[in-house]
């Protein structure tokens, strides 16, 4: 209970920092009288979310939920597939030798360059964006989990082996729980990269979502909605990261070095 209380306090400090940043931004814009289409004030950007503009309708609710949905699906898919892939990869020396170079190759492909190909194959819509999110964020998930599965004190494995336990039991009883702290640090990186992936997907191939709003407003030089979208994206990224950190406290209370 105290842990969770502490946690909320730490989170609040993060929100305070964020609030401080927004105030500074507001001041800079007001004091230097920066023109709105260069840099709108955060207030004006945020107001765009709540008040219908006379000249355009951004359908915020529809677009925010589209992006949020894609992020959640993309994150879930990446996490589940990432862990499954890591289990397969770490199962034997042979599969490690085969898969790791392959992943390094895929991970080093410039995503913006292959996004149009994915669009060509899968067309507009959620599949494309989820796949792009996956390609952008699976690598830290797989590498972290694989490291955790393999970085086990060999002597611990003897505990299972002397009872003639199976390789599967070694995985379930020792390797997987041992990898949880690594999985969580993977999840944290993955949570922010997934958001980036989805937005990139929407840039390239979408008819809705916050990435779509950004691209669209760019054409019309309507800057405030771009910043409004950026603020919402940042909040989503922070929210997902916070959710992961909260889960970490609940799921691995035995792990001392939980960091915020």
């Amino acid at each position, binding site marked *: 209970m105290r842990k969770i209380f502490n946690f909320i306090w730490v989170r609040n400090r993060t929100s305070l920092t964020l609030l401080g940043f927004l105030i500074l931004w507001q001041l800079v814009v007001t004091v230097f009288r920066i023109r709105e289409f260069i840099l709108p004030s955060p207030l004006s950007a945020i107001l765009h979310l709540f008040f219908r503009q006379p000249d355009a309708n951004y359908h915020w609710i529809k677009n925010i939920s589209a992006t949020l949905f894609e992020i959640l699906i993309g994150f879930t898919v990446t996490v589940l597939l990432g862990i499954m892939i890591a289990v397969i990869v770490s199962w034997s020396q042979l599969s490690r030798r085969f898969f790791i170079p392959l992943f390094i190759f895929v991970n080093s492909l410039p995503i913006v360059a292959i996004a149009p190909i994915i669009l060509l194959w899968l067309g507009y819509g959620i599949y494309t964006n989820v796949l792009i999110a996956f390609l952008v964020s699976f690598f830290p998930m797989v590498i972290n989990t694989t490291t955790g599965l393999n970085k086990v*004190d060999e*002597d*611990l494995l*003897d*505990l*299972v*082996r*002397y*009872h*003639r*336990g199976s390789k599967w*039991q070694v995985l379930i*009883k*020792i390797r997987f*729980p*041992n990898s*949880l702290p690594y999985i969580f640090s993977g999840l944290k990186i993955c949570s922010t990269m997934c958001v980036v992936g989805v937005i990139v997907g929407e840039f390239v191939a979408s008819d809705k979502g916050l990435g779509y709003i950004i691209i669209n407003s760019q054409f019309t030089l309507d800057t405030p909605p771009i910043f409004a979208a950026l603020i919402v994206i940042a909040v989503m990224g922070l929210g997902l990261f916070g959710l992961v950190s909260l889960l970490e406290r609940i799921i*691995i*209370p*035995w*792990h*001392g070095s939980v960091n915020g």
Partner: protein
Amino acid sequence: MPNTPLISIRGLKKIFTTLTGEKIEALENIALDIYPGEFVSIVGPSGCGKTTLLKILAGLVQKDGGEIKVDKESFDPTREVGFVFQKPLLLDWRKVIDNVLLPIEILKINRASMFGRAQELLELVGLKGFEKAYPNELSGGMQQRVSIARALIHDPKLMLMDEPFGALDALTRERMNLELLRIWREAKKTVLFVTHGIAEAIFLSDRVAVLSARPSTVVTALDIHLSRPRTLNVRTSPEFGKLSMKVYDSLEMV
């Protein structure tokens, strides 16, 4: 003493190859019989292969020669061995009670039916009330006592114990020695006990096997005819002194 050994070891050999390709002959020629219900201790210089011997018996290390005969009629070596390792080797993510129940899960025995037994064993090793603690909340000595409870949970016939009390303070160690003798007597276990302490070995055992330095052989296997049940003051008796001298002498020889 029953005439069929539970385990009979002859000409046991183990040669390790290090990463650099160097050969280390750990066990040269080990011969030892362990009879059912016997308490046998192994003493020997550091690095002579005591841990290796226990691990070979537990099937964790492959032997490179010799034979180990197991009385399969009275003993199933895959399910009836309890190993107390030199380090506690507790799983950080499991509470104390769940660490004790680990062998039950591996052996696919119903967990709920063993819960009471796990609590009894924790009480036995003096850790009543710590069931819900995590290992990193315990001292080194407490952790090792959890690992002893864990090695007993599946009621093994043969206990392999690798310097289990090495990390304990003297008082706890004496208490654990007495408890171990009580468990051994009441539960009719066979114990193979590795230790650095010559007094501890004599106090506990029916027989003390002295190993030579690497490459090791059994130099002597000394019968300990002190009467049982033993109390701590047996250690001040003249016979005890004589036996200690004998063990020291055979260790000197090597």
